Protein backbone atom coordinates (compact mmCIF):
# COMPACT_ATOMS: atom_id res chain seq x y z
CA UNK A 1 0.00 0.00 0.00
CA UNK A 2 1.72 3.10 -1.22
CA UNK A 3 -0.61 5.50 0.55
CA UNK A 4 -0.40 4.24 4.10
CA UNK A 5 2.18 6.77 5.26
CA UNK A 6 4.09 9.90 4.30
CA UNK A 7 7.53 10.35 5.86
CA UNK A 8 10.01 13.23 5.55
CA UNK A 9 13.44 13.31 7.20
CA UNK A 10 15.62 16.40 7.13
CA UNK A 11 19.10 16.89 8.52
CA UNK A 12 20.01 20.28 9.98
CA UNK A 13 23.39 20.52 11.68
CA UNK A 14 23.66 17.29 13.69
CA UNK A 15 19.92 16.85 14.21
CA UNK A 16 17.51 14.97 11.98
CA UNK A 17 13.84 15.96 12.16
CA UNK A 18 11.30 13.40 11.01
CA UNK A 19 7.69 14.22 10.20
CA UNK A 20 5.23 11.47 9.41
CA UNK A 21 1.53 11.11 8.67
CA UNK A 22 0.04 7.63 8.87
CA UNK A 23 -3.28 7.01 7.18
CA UNK A 24 -5.41 5.20 9.75
CA UNK A 25 -9.01 5.67 11.03
CA UNK A 26 -8.04 5.55 14.75
CA UNK A 27 -11.59 4.47 15.64
CA UNK A 28 -12.14 4.59 19.40
CA UNK A 29 -14.92 1.99 19.51
CA UNK A 30 -17.33 4.46 21.13
CA UNK A 31 -18.50 6.23 17.97
CA UNK A 32 -21.83 5.30 16.39
CA UNK A 33 -22.51 4.82 12.72
CA UNK A 34 -24.84 7.71 11.75
CA UNK A 35 -27.00 5.53 9.48
CA UNK A 36 -27.33 2.30 11.44
CA UNK A 37 -26.89 3.65 14.98
CA UNK A 38 -24.50 0.80 15.69
CA UNK A 39 -21.14 1.21 17.37
CA UNK A 40 -18.17 1.31 15.00
CA UNK A 41 -15.64 -1.25 16.29
CA UNK A 42 -12.37 0.04 17.74
CA UNK A 43 -9.60 0.17 15.15
CA UNK A 44 -6.47 2.03 16.20
CA UNK A 45 -2.69 1.91 15.99
CA UNK A 46 -1.31 0.48 19.25
CA UNK A 47 2.42 0.35 18.63
CA UNK A 48 4.71 2.30 16.40
CA UNK A 49 8.47 2.43 16.07
CA UNK A 50 11.05 4.33 14.09
CA UNK A 51 14.33 2.80 12.98
CA UNK A 52 17.51 4.39 11.69
CA UNK A 53 19.32 2.00 9.38
CA UNK A 54 17.46 -0.87 11.06
CA UNK A 55 18.05 0.16 14.69
CA UNK A 56 15.11 1.37 16.82
CA UNK A 57 15.60 4.99 17.87
CA UNK A 58 12.13 5.86 19.16
CA UNK A 59 8.94 3.88 19.70
CA UNK A 60 5.49 4.52 21.11
CA UNK A 61 2.35 2.98 22.53
CA UNK A 62 -0.85 4.68 21.44
CA UNK A 63 -4.44 4.53 22.62
CA UNK A 64 -7.65 5.73 21.01
CA UNK A 65 -6.97 9.38 21.93
CA UNK A 66 -4.48 9.86 19.11
CA UNK A 67 -6.12 11.72 16.21
CA UNK A 68 -7.25 10.08 12.98
CA UNK A 69 -4.44 9.87 10.40
CA UNK A 70 -1.81 10.31 13.15
CA UNK A 71 0.86 12.96 12.77
CA UNK A 72 4.16 12.28 14.54
CA UNK A 73 7.33 14.33 14.55
CA UNK A 74 10.54 13.51 16.41
CA UNK A 75 14.24 14.36 16.39
CA UNK A 76 17.51 12.51 16.78
CA UNK A 77 21.25 12.91 16.40
CA UNK A 78 23.86 10.71 14.83
CA UNK A 79 22.53 10.30 11.30
CA UNK A 80 23.90 11.53 8.00
CA UNK A 81 22.28 12.46 4.73
CA UNK A 82 21.46 9.31 2.78
CA UNK A 83 20.61 7.23 5.88
CA UNK A 84 17.15 5.67 5.95
CA UNK A 85 14.45 6.21 8.57
CA UNK A 86 11.70 3.59 8.63
CA UNK A 87 8.46 3.83 10.60
CA UNK A 88 6.31 0.76 11.27
CA UNK A 89 2.95 0.53 13.04
CA UNK A 90 0.81 -2.32 14.32
CA UNK A 91 -2.87 -1.82 15.15
CA UNK A 92 -5.27 -3.56 17.52
CA UNK A 93 -6.47 -5.85 14.71
CA UNK A 94 -2.94 -7.01 13.99
CA UNK A 95 -2.63 -5.05 10.76
CA UNK A 96 0.66 -3.33 10.04
CA UNK A 97 1.84 -0.46 7.89
CA UNK A 98 5.15 1.17 7.19
CA UNK A 99 6.85 3.99 5.39
CA UNK A 100 10.39 5.22 5.02
CA UNK A 101 12.40 8.23 3.99
CA UNK A 102 15.97 8.87 3.00
CA UNK A 103 17.44 11.67 5.12
CA UNK A 104 18.04 14.84 3.09
Amino acid at each position, binding site marked *: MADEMKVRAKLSGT*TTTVKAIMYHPME*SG*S*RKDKDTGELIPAHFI*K*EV*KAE*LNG*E*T*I*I*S*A*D*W*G*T*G*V*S*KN*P*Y*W*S*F*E*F*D*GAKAGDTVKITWTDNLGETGSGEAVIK
Partner: protein
Amino acid sequence: MNISKRKFIQGSLYSGVLAVLGKATLLQSAFAEWPTAAFDETEYEPALKGLIGDAEMQESNVTLDAPEIAENGATVPVKVSTDLDNVEWISILGDKNPRPWISRFYFHGKSKPFVSTRIKLRESSNVVAIVKADGKLYTSKSAVKVTAGGCV
Protein backbone atom coordinates in the same frame (compact mmCIF):
# COMPACT_ATOMS: atom_id res chain seq x y z
CA MET B 1 40.49 -30.17 9.32
CA ASN B 2 37.11 -31.76 9.92
CA ILE B 3 37.07 -30.74 13.56
CA SER B 4 38.04 -27.18 12.90
CA LYS B 5 35.46 -26.99 10.15
CA ARG B 6 32.79 -28.33 12.52
CA LYS B 7 33.83 -25.90 15.20
CA PHE B 8 33.64 -23.11 12.70
CA ILE B 9 30.14 -24.15 11.68
CA GLN B 10 29.08 -24.50 15.32
CA GLY B 11 30.53 -21.11 16.07
CA SER B 12 28.71 -19.42 13.26
CA LEU B 13 25.48 -21.21 14.18
CA TYR B 14 25.76 -19.95 17.76
CA SER B 15 26.41 -16.40 16.72
CA GLY B 16 23.49 -16.63 14.30
CA VAL B 17 21.18 -17.79 17.08
CA LEU B 18 22.51 -15.09 19.41
CA ALA B 19 21.96 -12.45 16.76
CA VAL B 20 18.35 -13.59 16.31
CA LEU B 21 17.79 -13.67 20.09
CA GLY B 22 19.33 -10.23 20.43
CA LYS B 23 17.04 -8.86 17.78
CA ALA B 24 13.95 -10.43 19.34
CA THR B 25 14.85 -8.96 22.75
CA LEU B 26 15.38 -5.55 21.21
CA LEU B 27 11.99 -5.64 19.52
CA GLN B 28 10.32 -6.75 22.72
CA SER B 29 11.93 -4.04 24.81
CA ALA B 30 10.92 -1.44 22.25
CA PHE B 31 7.32 -2.55 22.57
CA ALA B 32 7.40 -3.57 26.25
CA GLU B 33 4.46 -3.04 28.57
CA TRP B 34 1.71 -1.55 26.47
CA PRO B 35 -0.08 0.30 29.31
CA THR B 36 -3.34 -1.68 29.44
CA ALA B 37 -3.94 -0.69 33.08
CA ALA B 38 -3.97 3.00 32.08
CA PHE B 39 -5.87 2.53 28.80
CA ASP B 40 -8.69 0.56 30.41
CA GLU B 41 -9.62 3.33 32.86
CA THR B 42 -12.34 5.85 32.00
CA GLU B 43 -11.53 8.42 34.71
CA TYR B 44 -8.35 10.47 34.99
CA GLU B 45 -7.13 9.53 38.48
CA PRO B 46 -7.41 5.74 37.94
CA ALA B 47 -5.82 6.09 34.49
CA LEU B 48 -2.91 8.03 36.00
CA LYS B 49 -2.56 5.37 38.68
CA GLY B 50 -2.60 2.69 35.98
CA LEU B 51 0.32 4.47 34.34
CA ILE B 52 2.55 5.41 37.28
CA GLY B 53 1.06 3.68 40.33
CA ASP B 54 1.46 5.76 43.49
CA ALA B 55 4.71 7.40 42.39
CA GLU B 56 5.24 11.09 43.13
CA MET B 57 5.64 13.58 40.28
CA GLN B 58 7.62 16.80 40.28
CA GLU B 59 6.07 19.80 38.52
CA SER B 60 9.21 20.94 36.70
CA ASN B 61 11.49 20.45 33.70
CA VAL B 62 8.67 19.60 31.25
CA THR B 63 7.73 21.94 28.43
CA LEU B 64 4.21 21.32 27.18
CA ASP B 65 2.98 23.25 24.17
CA ALA B 66 -0.78 23.00 23.56
CA PRO B 67 -3.22 25.61 22.21
CA GLU B 68 -5.27 27.70 24.65
CA ILE B 69 -8.25 27.31 22.35
CA ALA B 70 -8.79 24.35 20.04
CA GLU B 71 -11.48 24.85 17.42
CA ASN B 72 -11.47 21.17 16.56
CA GLY B 73 -11.14 18.72 19.44
CA ALA B 74 -10.59 15.89 16.96
CA THR B 75 -7.10 17.13 16.20
CA VAL B 76 -5.29 19.18 18.83
CA PRO B 77 -1.55 19.73 18.23
CA VAL B 78 0.61 18.97 21.27
CA LYS B 79 4.38 19.22 21.68
CA VAL B 80 6.33 17.97 24.69
CA SER B 81 10.02 18.35 25.43
CA THR B 82 12.30 18.37 28.45
CA ASP B 83 15.78 19.52 29.45
CA LEU B 84 16.29 16.32 31.45
CA ASP B 85 18.86 13.68 30.52
CA ASN B 86 18.31 9.92 30.32
CA VAL B 87 14.66 10.23 29.38
CA GLU B 88 12.95 6.86 29.32
CA TRP B 89 9.53 7.96 28.14
CA ILE B 90 7.05 10.81 27.65
CA SER B 91 3.33 10.14 28.13
CA ILE B 92 0.32 12.32 27.27
CA LEU B 93 -3.13 12.29 28.88
CA GLY B 94 -6.36 14.31 28.56
CA ASP B 95 -8.13 14.50 31.91
CA LYS B 96 -11.72 14.66 30.55
CA ASN B 97 -11.40 12.11 27.78
CA PRO B 98 -13.47 8.90 27.89
CA ARG B 99 -10.10 7.15 27.99
CA PRO B 100 -7.73 9.68 29.59
CA TRP B 101 -4.47 7.92 28.70
CA ILE B 102 -3.53 8.84 25.14
CA SER B 103 0.05 7.90 24.29
CA ARG B 104 3.54 7.07 25.53
CA PHE B 105 6.78 7.54 23.58
CA TYR B 106 10.01 5.68 24.39
CA PHE B 107 13.44 7.12 23.66
CA HIS B 108 16.34 4.95 22.56
CA GLY B 109 19.82 5.68 21.29
CA LYS B 110 20.33 9.21 20.09
CA SER B 111 16.70 10.31 19.94
CA LYS B 112 15.90 13.65 21.57
CA PRO B 113 13.33 13.86 24.39
CA PHE B 114 10.82 15.64 22.19
CA VAL B 115 7.54 14.68 20.62
CA SER B 116 5.05 16.45 18.40
CA THR B 117 1.67 14.77 17.95
CA ARG B 118 -2.04 15.45 17.50
CA ILE B 119 -4.61 14.25 20.00
CA LYS B 120 -8.38 14.09 20.45
CA LEU B 121 -10.04 16.04 23.28
CA ARG B 122 -13.71 15.38 23.96
CA GLU B 123 -14.22 18.69 25.76
CA SER B 124 -12.32 21.55 27.40
CA SER B 125 -9.79 19.91 29.67
CA ASN B 126 -6.21 19.71 30.86
CA VAL B 127 -3.60 18.09 28.70
CA VAL B 128 -1.07 16.41 30.97
CA ALA B 129 2.47 15.46 29.99
CA ILE B 130 4.56 13.12 32.14
CA VAL B 131 8.27 12.49 31.65
CA LYS B 132 10.21 9.62 33.20
CA ALA B 133 13.94 10.33 33.43
CA ASP B 134 16.54 8.57 35.56
CA GLY B 135 13.70 6.67 37.23
CA LYS B 136 11.95 9.87 38.39
CA LEU B 137 8.70 11.44 37.18
CA TYR B 138 8.15 15.03 36.08
CA THR B 139 4.94 16.63 34.85
CA SER B 140 3.29 19.67 33.34
CA LYS B 141 -0.29 20.45 32.39
CA SER B 142 -2.01 22.89 30.12
CA ALA B 143 -5.69 23.91 29.95
CA VAL B 144 -7.22 23.68 26.48
CA LYS B 145 -10.62 25.18 25.68
CA VAL B 146 -12.33 23.04 23.06
CA THR B 147 -15.01 24.73 20.97
CA ALA B 148 -16.05 21.57 19.03
CA GLY B 149 -15.37 18.27 20.79
CA GLY B 150 -13.46 15.47 19.12
CA CYS B 151 -15.24 12.23 18.32
CA VAL B 152 -13.45 10.19 20.94
